[in-house]
């Protein structure tokens, strides 16, 4: 946004700097010292920690790409699908995205949003990123060219999709290592979305807490599996090729597929360890392919057992997901979910599958098609939600997310 209201300042210190800036007179000076003491007293621990607190860590907001895609996945994420009000057209979309961009640009940097009624909750971003995606309804109302892949995925035989976890006009992905920060940022964004749309679905996800494992460690899902080993590495040409779009208003953007996948843990409990490892083709201990020793070892799909069967079964997840076509690759950035169980059960758990790819039709769909046709993991997993969004590129300080489509 180019409004003067977007000027930057360091979080929480403006008033103190003014008060100590030599402008204080008479009795005001004593009051100012009191305020300064109160501020520093509440924000500085008695003995400073030897390492910087993660709460102060900031991921840049502005740039060619939106943050929250190539950002090492934070511990917590909330995904929200929003339905636009019927009367919101191009001008309304532009106004909404300018406001939401300004909120995101501030909150991710540890600065309260304008009109933030709980500004203290903004001071610890803990690597907060806020990522926006446009559904087919958004792009149609914007009058922009709609990517051919932007719409519901083709139906798969394994799907049991529920409307309350599917589709939507606008995606908010709010992620941070601190769940309180996620909650505050989400509420702030939704307050500023209320004039333009209603919440269609919300999905809360988590990974291991910050500091439990080294950054970049592949996550585990609630089956105990190492999940995401073959991801391209952010910062490499390979990643750029897989993820970033290269034409039109979506240049430097990408696409997001979000599929809520219920995991039947009770049924999984009945499967013993060898069966669990064969279903995916990797060991549970460290995620190594059944033909290797380390997580990153290349699977040897030709290797056979003493009696001639493939070591990595034909029906295993990694065999079915793998394609000889190098185009058919995606970048996964999913989260676990674990909610209150229905009556008589002890868990309602699963995976918020999230993948980013330059083109859904050529990269994601062929993989999903193969997995739907045959993947032993389907015995224990059920897709119950599905949504596809175009993720516009990032913006610079004078711009807003979506300006390549709406300006």
């Amino acid at each position, binding site marked *: 946004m180019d409004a003067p209201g977007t*000027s930057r300042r360091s979080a929480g210190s403006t*008033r103190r700097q003014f008060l100590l800036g030599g402008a204080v*007179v008479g009795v005001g000076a004593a009051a100012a010292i009191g305020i300064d003491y109160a501020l520093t007293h509440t924000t500085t621990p008695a003995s400073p920690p030897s390492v910087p607190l993660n709460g102060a860590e900031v991921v840049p907001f502005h740039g060619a790409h939106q943050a929250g895609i190539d950002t090492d996945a934070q511990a917590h994420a909330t995904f929200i699908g929003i339905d636009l009000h019927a009367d919101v057209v191009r001008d309304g979309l532009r106004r*909404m995205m300018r406001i939401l961009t300004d909120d995101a640009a501030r909150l991710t940097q540890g600065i309260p949003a304008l*009109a933030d009624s709980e500004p203290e909750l903004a001071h610890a971003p803990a690597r907060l990123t806020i990522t926006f995606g446009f559904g087919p309804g958004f792009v149609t109302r914007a009058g922009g060219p709609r990517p051919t892949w932007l719409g519901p995925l083709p139906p798969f035989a394994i799907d049991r999709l529920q409307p309350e976890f599917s589709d939507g006009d606008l995606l908010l992905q709010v992620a941070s290592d601190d769940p309180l920060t996620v909650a505050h940022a989400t509420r702030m964004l939704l307050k500023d979305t*209320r*004039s333009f749309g209603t919440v269609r679905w919300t999905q809360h996800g988590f990974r291991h807490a910050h500091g439990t494992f080294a950054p970049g460690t592949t996550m585990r899902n609630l089956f105990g599996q190492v999940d995401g080993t073959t991801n391209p590495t952010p910062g490499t040409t390979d990643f750029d090729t897989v993820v970033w779009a290269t034409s039109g208003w979506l240049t430097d953007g990408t696409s997001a597929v979000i599929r809520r996948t219920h995991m039947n843990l009770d049924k999984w409990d009945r499967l013993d360890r060898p069966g669990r490892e064969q279903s995916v083709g990797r060991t549970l201990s460290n995620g190594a392919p059944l033909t290797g020793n380390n997580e990153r070892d290349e699977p040897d799909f030709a290797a056979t057992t003493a009696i001639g069967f493939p070591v990595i079964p034909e029906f295993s997840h990694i065999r079915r997901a793998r394609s000889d076509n190098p185009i058919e690759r995606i970048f996964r950035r999913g989260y676990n979910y674990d909610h209150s169980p229905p009556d008589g059960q002890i868990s309602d758990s699963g995976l918020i599958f999230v993948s980013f790819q330059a083109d859904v039709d050529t990269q994601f769909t062929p993989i999903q098609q193969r997995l739907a046709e045959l993947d032993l993991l389907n015995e224990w997993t059920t897709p119950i939600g599905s949504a596809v969004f175009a993720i516009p590129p990032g913006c610079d300080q004078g711009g807003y997310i979506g300006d390549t489509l709406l300006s």
Partner: protein
Amino acid sequence: MSIRTTTTIKTRLVVLLAGTALAVTGCTSNTPTAAETPIPAGEAVTMTDAWVKAAEEGMSAAFGELANTSDQDVTVISARTAASSMLELHETVENDAGEMMMRQIEGGFVIPAGGALTLEPGGNHIMLMNLTAPLKAGEDVTFTLTLMDESTFEFTAPVKDYSGANETYEGDMDMDDMDMEMGSDN
């Protein structure tokens, strides 16, 4: 809504107040006295984090942080915008009954030399008394402030949805969602 303004700013009063503030600052400022020609106040004022509350009709308010980079106090005498046919500079004060009431500030807003004045819900604010059109979230509204030396300062503020800033107006008899706030100056 029945809006009754309490006072009209008297120019002489403003000059008097501004002069007093200058004298106070002069005694205690660390800045060496410079014999330079004073710059127009409008060039010394900045506004950051400005925003306006969205509203369909009637009243609204603008907020933000006004700063003064000069070594003399600056007084904001009035504000205008195309978004409202009538603007007032308001302060929020406690009345005799201990209730916080907003009213037009006498003498305008004083931004201290080298300091800042925060306009915020529950405190000082620029009151839009009579909107000319709905203020929609995400729009920009431009304001022009007139300062004590008749120079002006312009800033633009985005419109934001906000549920607060429902201060009781001194003398207002018609606030539906306030029950105990009958004006005390009737």
